[in-house]
């Protein structure tokens, strides 16, 4: 805006300014994208001859000044893409020459002024993406020149006024992303020029009026995400210019009208997520007409209740996407499907389809997504499918497919997800599968697969999820897989017949997170301590194997673990303390001990000694008592002897000497005999120890007394 200077005489030369031919009046101001800020000045109202005022794509704030309404010659007012706020002034209805009015992409509030109904020349009204509330004013419906009415992205409520049918020039009606309620008025059928009708994402209800099919110019109909009920109008075929019919996510019921076949410009048919039912029988006009729909590129009838054969839907070789997921279609998959050679996405899952996968599908060279899961399909996977080299998703799970897993799957280099689970496949997992280096998810669980897990699966270097559980796989867990499939975050090999020990390379899968499940196999040997490296692992199941040895202490490092099952193994020893908070069920049917199981019973010295002390104390006490008793008795005897000897000596010590001399003079006794001499009165007595009995002593005494040899003299 450097050219804008009050000093310069030639205002008409300023950037963005356009003057009238006589250069007397400013007729146009185009300041779009000038980086302007501040509010819209009311001074603009002074430009009485202004026909175009374009202030779009700036940073203007504040309200729209009501003075703008004074510009009686204004034809175009474009304020879109600013930050204008506040209520729209009623005075704007005074711009009686206005043809184009856009205030889209601001933050305007309040109701749409009814005064807009006075803008008799208005052709374009764009109030999109603001915060307008209230209902659509019926006053707008008098704007007979209106071609484009865009009220999308506001907070409008209430119903579409029936008077809208008076807007006979209307070409485009965009009311999506509001809170509109009520039903579509039948008067809408008066809009003969209407080409685009977008009502999606509101809360409208009611039955789609058949009068709508009078709008013969209609090209695009989008009612997605409302609550329309009842049938699709039977006369839909009158809309010969219809290119897009988008009715997804409503409450529609009843059949697809046979007249739909008349819409031969139709390119997209989206009826998903309704309650549509009925079959598409070939005998109806529907089929004959449908073959005229040569342009149909997208058919989406998913999540309805359709029955019968899918044959009537075929015939358009423009078909790119066919989605029939979750209905009750039955019969075989028609081989004619192979004639829609542009088909990229084919989704037939969750139906009642039977028979084999037609080999004619091999003609679908551009096929990217093939989902036929959850049906009753039988027979083998046809080898011709190897021609579909662009397949990224191949989903055949939950069928009754037989035969072996074909090795040509290894030629599908774009394959990202292969799901053959829950079938009746047998034989080996082909090593060639390892060539699909872009594979992210391999699901082969719940089949009758046998043989070893091929180490070539280590070629799946992008693999995130590997599920081989519930098969008859034998052999060891190949360490090549554990080394090279570094991006695995889920590994399930349970319920097979795998043998050998868990390779220590398992510790290299440091991104393992969801689960490591090796349970119900015949694995033996120790739990490798490298398992402690899996610090992101949340669930670990090694139960029902023949694992022995002790639980490595490294498992205490698994800080993310919240489910652990080591039960039903030959493990023994103490459970590491860090794992003691897991429930008892994690460790049952093993020889483990310690918390949370019962305490370990060990043979340590402390317990021996305690046992010893209990018994030994008693023994020792008994021994001490008995020895003491013996010692006491012996001492007692000695004391008695000594005492009696002492008394003997002290009583007759001298007499004893006397008697001894006498005795010896008489020649009695020998020195070697223990003789004791007693003097009783003057009588010397000799007792001989040889004769210990007292009677004998008495008798000796008596004999001696009898002998009378006793002297009374003291000599």
């Amino acid at each position, binding site marked *: 805006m450097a050219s804008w200077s009050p000093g310069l005489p030639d205002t008409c030369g300023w950037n963005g300014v356009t003057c009238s031919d006589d250069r007397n009046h400013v007729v146009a101001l185009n300041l779009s994208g000038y980086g302007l800020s501040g509010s819209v000045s009311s001074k603009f109202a002074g430009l009485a001859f202004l026909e175009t005022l374009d202030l779009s794509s700036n940073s203007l704030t504040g309200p729209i000044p009501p003075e703008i309404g004074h510009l009686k010659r204004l034809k175009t007012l474009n304020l879109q893409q600013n930050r204008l706020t506040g209520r729209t002034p009623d005075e704007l209805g005074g711009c009686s020459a206005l043809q184009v009015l856009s205030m889209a*992409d601001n933050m305007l509030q309040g109701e749409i002024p009814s005064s807009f109904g006075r803008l008799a020349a208005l052709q374009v009204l764009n109030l999109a993406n603001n915060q307008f509330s209230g209902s659509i004013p019926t006053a707008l419906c008098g704007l007979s020149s209106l071609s484009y009415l865009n009220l999308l992205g506001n907070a409008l409520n209430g119903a579409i006024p029936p008077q809208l049918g008076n807007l006979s020039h209307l*070409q485009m009606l965009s009311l999506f992303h509001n809170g509109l309620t009520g039903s579509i008025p039948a008067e809408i059928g008066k809009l003969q020029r209407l*080409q685009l009708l977008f009502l999606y994402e509101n809360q409208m209800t009611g039955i789609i009026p058949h009068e709508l099919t009078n709008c013969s110019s209609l090209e695009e109909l989008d009612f997605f995400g409302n609550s329309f009920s009842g049938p699709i109008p039977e006369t839909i075929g009158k809309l010969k210019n219809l290119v897009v019919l*988008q009715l*997804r996510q409503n409450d529609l019921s009843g059949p697809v009208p046979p007249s739909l076949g008349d819409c031969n410009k139709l390119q997209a048919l989206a009826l998903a997520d309704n309650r549509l039912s009925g079959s598409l029988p070939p005998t109806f006009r529907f089929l004959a007409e449908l073959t005229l729909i040569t*342009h149909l590129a997208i058919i989406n009838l998913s999540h309805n209740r359709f029955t019968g054969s899918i044959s009537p839907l075929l015939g358009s070789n423009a078909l790119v996407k066919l989605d029939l997921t979750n209905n009750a279609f039955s019969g075989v998959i028609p081989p004619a499907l192979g004639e829609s050679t542009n088909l990229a996405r084919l989704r037939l899952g969750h139906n009642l389809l039977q028979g084999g996968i037609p080999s004619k599908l091999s003609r679908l060279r551009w096929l990217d997504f093939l989902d036929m899961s959850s049906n009753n399909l039988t027979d083998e996977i046809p080898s011709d499918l190897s021609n579909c080299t662009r397949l990224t998703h191949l989903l055949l799970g939950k069928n009754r497919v037989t035969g072996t897993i074909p090795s040509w799957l290894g030629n599908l280099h774009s394959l*990202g997800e292969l799901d053959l689970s829950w079938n009746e496949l047998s034989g080996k997992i082909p090593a060639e599968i390892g060539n699909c280096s872009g594979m992210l998810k391999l699901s082969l669980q719940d089949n009758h697969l046998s043989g070893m897990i091929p180490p070539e699966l280590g070629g799946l270097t992008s693999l995130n999820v590997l599920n081989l559980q519930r098969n008859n796989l034998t052999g060891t867990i190949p360490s090549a897989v554990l080394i090279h499939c*570094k991006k695995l975050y889920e590994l399930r090999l349970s319920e097979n017949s795998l043998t050998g020990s868990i390779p220590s390379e398992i510790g290299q899968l440091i991104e393992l997170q969801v689960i490591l499940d090796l349970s119900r196999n015949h694995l033996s040997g120790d739990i490798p301590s490298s398992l402690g490296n899996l610090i992101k692992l949340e669930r670990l199941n090694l139960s029902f194997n023949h694992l022995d040895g002790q639980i490595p202490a490294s498992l205490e490092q698994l*800080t993310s673990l919240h489910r652990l099952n080591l039960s039903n193994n030959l493990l023994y020893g103490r459970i590491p303390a860090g794992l003691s908070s897991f429930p008892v069920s994690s460790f049952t049917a093993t020889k483990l001990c310690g918390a949370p199981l019962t305490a370990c019973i060990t043979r340590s010295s402390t317990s021996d000694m305690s046992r010893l002390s209990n018994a030994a104390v008693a023994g020792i006490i008994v021994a001490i008592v008995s020895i003491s008793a013996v010692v006491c008795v012996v001492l007692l005897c000695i004391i008695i002897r000594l005492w009696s000897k002492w008394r003997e000596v002290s009583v007759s010590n001298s007499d004893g000497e006397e008697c001894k001399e006498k005795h010896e003079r008489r020649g009695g006794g020998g020195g070697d005999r223990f003789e004791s001499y007693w003097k009783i009165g003057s009588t010397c007595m000799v007792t001989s120890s040889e004769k210990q009995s007292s009677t004998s002593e008495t008798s000796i005494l008596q004999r001696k007394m009898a002998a009378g040899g006793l002297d009374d003299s003291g000599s």
Partner: protein
Amino acid sequence: MDGVSPLRLPFPSPLPSPLLIFPRYPRMASLPVLLPCLLLLLAASPALSTNPEGEALHAWRARLTDPTNVLQSWDPTLVNPCTWFHVTCDSQNRVIRLDLGNSNVSGSIGPELGGLEHLQYLELYRNNFQGKIPAELGNLRSLISMDLYGNQLQGEIPKSFAKLKSLRFLRLNNNRLSGSIPRELVFLSNLKVLDLSNNDLCGTIPIDGPFANFPLQSFDNNSRLNGPELQGLVPYDIGC
């Protein structure tokens, strides 16, 4: 809110043959020729803006550099992102996992990701993500695991992470994060594993709540981190 401009397919279809993808652009020829501003007035074409989660992911993807084409399957014309690779949905088609670890992706982590209300696992580890962790990630109220380790993220750990009430695993190690550890994280009662090692964090380490159980290795190699906080003795460290 979205502009009024038509929704375009920014990435060429991988299928080279001329296919009839139903037109998503307004048919200019059938309209009367009006002033150029009309181009901006025409509404977006039929319901593509039906899955906000797919839109959020697509808007984020547009800013990423993806040399190995891991995001090739991210087709915005599909009704939801549940068949996109590296995206996992629940039975109601809501995104619960985003697995882009080790994918050689660079760019910034988008604030759009905060709109994935049912996301449980955000796995963006070992890539070349730069810039700040957007505060909008605090809106992920179902999040169980956030793994952003091994990138070049800078700036602070958002305080909004205090709202991640379901969070069990938070690994932000090996980045260039700075600032202090937000005290608000002590309210994450489900947090079992926290790894902030190998960053440039400063200040002290909280000791309350789950922080009582985190080993010191969780905070290794933050040269300006001062160790556990001394409660009551020093004031809260504002900016360090």
